[in-house]
């Protein structure tokens, strides 16, 4: 048995876009334990519900995270709408679904780029991010913002997408599909990429379940769990099946996310084909009173919003359980027994979003 060494990893580290700190306990080159230290980005925004009223809080909810910004706004609005028993127009449900799937697409492309960067494939990183810009262009054209667009509101959405633009988006999806195929070939078939991801960081189905993993992390280990199947927004009217893989290694997680991107494109096209005409927003008056748990499938997995209202315009409590928070135990488990050189790629394959996690 070698001598034990502790290597501090982070908070500022080239592979991490966001600060998290891990104390890696090593025996020679092998990690035996990883102890997380978080709190570098903790803001305490859940307590802000006591200072901002429930309408204003939509803007704060969108800023829980800049990557799944739209879905955070949507999840929050859905929780409040359920408490107030507001039924939003069908067209708004479809528009939300389109933006949500575009968000998933851009988030997975972003992740794909960061993964390529983590194993030192710089040109692949650039290609993925180049493709991602097309999605951001759609966001900018339809909402005015690239990253945070405040288009979701309690009672519906703020902006409509014209029929012409919808047609254009469907066209962009077709051309992107071809380009994505080219990039994904490299991630799926390139032997040099495969040697870095295959068999690395295996998480068994049982372990994924025991550790409460969610999203692509759980689906790559064979757990079929996708909140979209519960049919919130317009998902009930669309035809899709959760993407599941069995192996549970980095390769399986990459493959799940790549297939989800094709799925997102398909879902957007399905939405555009059947989106009904009509209003995009209902007027919401009064204050919420009651409580509700909403669960939404974000790019990183299931997110839980719990809102409790007391009939005044300030909520009693808003709690967000974000997917990365649920995936951290699974990460710590996969780190045990891995080589030090594999640590960056393992951290990346859970697709960590620290600012979500710490709020």
């Amino acid at each position: 048995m070698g001598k034990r060494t502790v290597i501090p990893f982070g908070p500022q580290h080239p592979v991490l876009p966001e600060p998290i700190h891990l104390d890696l306990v090593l025996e020679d080159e092998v990690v035996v334990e990883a102890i997380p230290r978080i709190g570098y980005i903790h803001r305490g925004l859940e307590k802000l519900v006591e200072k901002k009223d429930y309408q204003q809080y939509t803007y704060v909810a969108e800023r829980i995270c800049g990557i799944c910004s739209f879905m955070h706004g949507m999840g929050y609005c859905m929780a409040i709408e359920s408490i107030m028993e507001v039924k939003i127009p069908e067209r708004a449900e479809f528009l939300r679904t389109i933006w949500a799937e575009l968000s998933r697409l851009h988030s997975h492309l972003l992740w794909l780029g960061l993964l390529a960067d983590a194993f030192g494939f710089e040109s692949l990183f650039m290609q993925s991010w180049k493709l991602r810009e097309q999605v951001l262009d759609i966001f900018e054209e339809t909402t005015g913002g690239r990253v945070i667009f405040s288009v979701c509101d309690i009672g519906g959405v703020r902006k409509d997408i014209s029929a012409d633009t919808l047609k254009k988006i469907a066209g962009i999806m077709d051309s992107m599909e071809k380009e994505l195929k080219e990039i994904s070939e490299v991630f799926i078939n390139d032997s040099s990429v495969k040697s870095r991801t295959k068999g690395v960081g295996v998480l068994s189905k049982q372990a994924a379940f025991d550790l409460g993993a969610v999203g692509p992390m759980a689906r790559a280990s064979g757990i079929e769990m996708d909140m979209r199947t519960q049919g919130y927004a317009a998902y009930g009217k669309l035809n899709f099946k959760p993407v599941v893989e069995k192996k549970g290694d980095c390769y399986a997680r990459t493959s799940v996310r790549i297939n989800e991107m094709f799925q997102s494109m398909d879902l957007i096209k399905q939405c555009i084909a059947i989106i009904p005409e009509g209003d995009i927003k209902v007027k919401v008056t009064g204050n919420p009173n009651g409580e509700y748990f909403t669960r939404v499938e974000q790019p990183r997995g299931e997110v839980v919003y719990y809102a409790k209202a007391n009939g005044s315009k300030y909520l009693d409590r808003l709690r967000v359980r974000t997917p990365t928070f649920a995936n951290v135990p699974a990460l710590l488990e996969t780190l045990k027994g891995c080589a030090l050189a594999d640590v960056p790629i393992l951290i990346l394959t859970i697709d960590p979003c620290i600012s979500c996690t710490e709020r």
Partner: protein
Amino acid sequence: MNFVKKSPWILHYDGSSCNGCDIEVLACLTPLYDVERFGIINTGNPKHADILLITGSVNEQNIPVVKQLYEQMAMPKVVVAVGICATSGGIFAECYNVVGGVDKVLPVDVYVPGCAARPEAIIDGVVKALGILEEKQKFARKKNS
């Protein structure tokens, strides 16, 4: 020849931002905006960097980290606060764990507004920072001669 012009390298640190500005900083490096054509590289090593880009506000726990990064950078150096959170705390200013903008702990040279700051604005801010960096270099040379 008593000096050589160096390509400005950037060190990026995420204070407590929501990620929005961070991904826009990264987007500046990728093909559409491509600041690398100006010789600007995003480095992970503070000793290599000339410009410190900070996104997000500061809190009790990351103040020592931010200070240490700044102190490790060689003189002359400039600090750019990217996004409204790094400028003043923004929407999170009232949170219990937010101290405020980066200027509470470091001398900030350029403020880039926006939530999230657009890549064009970030590039504009970095170009302004380059001008300030040059002034500082000139001043340092004069002092040494």
